[in-house]
C-alpha cells in the first residue's frame, strides 16, 4: 500500500493548486473568493489527514466489553483546530464578500482589470 501512504497529501496539494490558480488567474473578485474557499478546504483536509490513525475511530469514548481490545481513537487536536477554523473561515469570507459588494457599488464593476484601469485614469 506504499502508493496510498501519500495519497491524501496529493489530493490536498491538487486542491490547493486549483484554489491558488483560481485566485491568481481570474479577474472576477467573487471568483477569487471562491478560489480562496477551495484553498481553505484543502488545508482543512491536510490537517484532518494528519490526525487520522488507521483502524481508529472518532474520538468519542466508546464502551467496550471486557476482553475486547481497547479502541484506538484518532487524534482530537486537529479536529478542534479545524472545527474552529471552518467557522472563522466563513466569517472572514463574509467580510471579503461585503468588501466586494462595496467595490461593486463604488466602481460599478468587480473585475480586477477594469478597476485598475479606472484607478489609473483617476
Amino acid at each position, binding site marked *: 500500500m506504499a502508493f496510498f501512504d*501519500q*495519497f491524501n*497529501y*496529493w*489530493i490536498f*496539494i491538487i*486542491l*490547493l*493548486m*486549483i*484554489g491558488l*490558480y*483560481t485566485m491568481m488567474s*481570474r*479577474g*472576477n473578485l*467573487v*471568483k477569487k*473568493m*471562491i478560489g480562496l*474557499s*477551495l484553498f481553505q478546504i484543502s488545508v482543512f*483536509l491536510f490537517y*484532518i489527514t494528519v*490526525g*487520522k*490513525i488507521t483502524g*481508529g475511530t*472518532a*474520538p*468519542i*469514548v466508546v464502551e467496550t466489553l471486557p476482553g475486547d481490545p481497547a479502541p484506538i*481513537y*484518532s*487524534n*482530537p*487536536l*486537529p*479536529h*478542534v483546530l*479545524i*472545527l*474552529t477554523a*471552518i*467557522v*472563522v*473561515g*466563513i*466569517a*472572514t*469570507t*463574509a*467580510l471579503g*464578500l*461585503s468588501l466586494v*459588494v462595496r467595490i*461593486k*457599488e463604488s466602481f*460599478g464593476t*468587480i473585475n480586477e482589470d477594469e478597476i485598475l484601469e479606472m484607478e489609473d485614469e483617476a
Partner: protein
Amino acid sequence: METETLALFVDLFLMVLLVAGALTVLTVRNLFVATMLLGIVSFTMALTFVSLDAVDVAFTEAAVGAGISTVLYIGTLALVGAQEKTGVKFSAWPLAICLAVGAVLIYATYEMPPYGSPDNPAQTHVAPRYVQVSPTEIGVPNMVTSVLASYRGFDTFGEVTVIFTAGIGVLLILSQRRRKRDDEAEEEAQKKGTQSKLRVSLTGLGSQHDLVPHIVAKLLIPFIFVFGLYVQFHGDFGPGGGFQAGVIFAAGFILHALIYGLQFTQRVLSPQVALILIVAGVLIYGGVGIVSMLMGGNFLDYNVLLPDSVAGQHIGILIIELGVGITVAAAMLVIYYAFVGRAEPVNKLPD
C-alpha cells in the same frame, strides 16, 4: 481485509469527486453555478471528514460550507451579478507559479510520515494525554469538546472574538449609507425589469406563491431548532457543540427569511436583538473566565467553579458552549441581514 478495501474504494471515489468538483468550479463561467458546485465540493469534503474519523468537523463543514456559505455567495451575486467576463487573455504566470508550488509540496510529501501510522509525530506529542486522561479528568466522552472548551479554552475564546469582530466588520462595511452614481441609477432603471425577480425572493415577501416550500418549511423549522438545541447541549456526549449548533440555528432563521421574507423574520428576531446577542455570547464566555479567576483559579480554569472538579468542568463547558452558540448564531444572522438589507427592498411590508 474486505471492509478495508471497500473503505479505500469509498475514499478514492470521494477524492476523485473532490478534484473533479474543484476543477469544474475553476472552469465554469457562471458564478451562480460555481457557487452551487462549491457547495457540493464542501459537502463531499464533509463526507471525506467522516471517513477520516472527524465527525465534529464534518458536521461543521456540512452546515457551514454547504449551507451558510452558499447563502452568502448567492446573496452577494444578487448584488453584483452572476456572469463572469469571458474571453480573458490567458497568462502563463499564475499557472507556472501554481505548478512550482505544487511540485515543491509534492516533493515535501515524501518526507511526511506515512498516512495513518500511530507512530507519527502528530500522534505522540499531546494527543495521548487528551485521549487517555481527558475522559476522567474532564469527564466528557467527546474528546473534541473537552479539548475545544477546556484544554484549549483560551484559544477558542480568541476564535469566538474573531467571529464577533467579523460580524461587526461586515455590519460596518455594509450598513453605510449608499451613494448612487448617476450612471448607475440609469443602469438600474433599465435593469429593474430583469433583476427584480431575484430581489423579491431575497428581500421582499419571500417566495410568496410557492405553496410547497411554505408548507415544508413550516414543518421543518421547529425541528431544525430542536435539533440545534440537541446539538448544543449534547455536544459533550456526541458530535456537536456551540459552533455547530450556532450555525444550525442561524440556518433555521435564514430558511425562514428565504421562504417567508426578511420582514417577517426580523419581527421574530430583530437586527438589534441579534446585535445584543453577538455581544452577549462573547461576554458569557469571558464572564466564565472572570468568575473562575474570582474563585481563585486561572482564567477559564473550570475546576474551581464547583467543589467537585469534574462537575466544575462540566458546568464550565456547558456555559461557554452556550456563549459560543449564541455568538455564532447571532453573527451569522447579522451577516445575512446585512447582505440582504443591502439589496433595495422591492416589496415593503405594510406595518
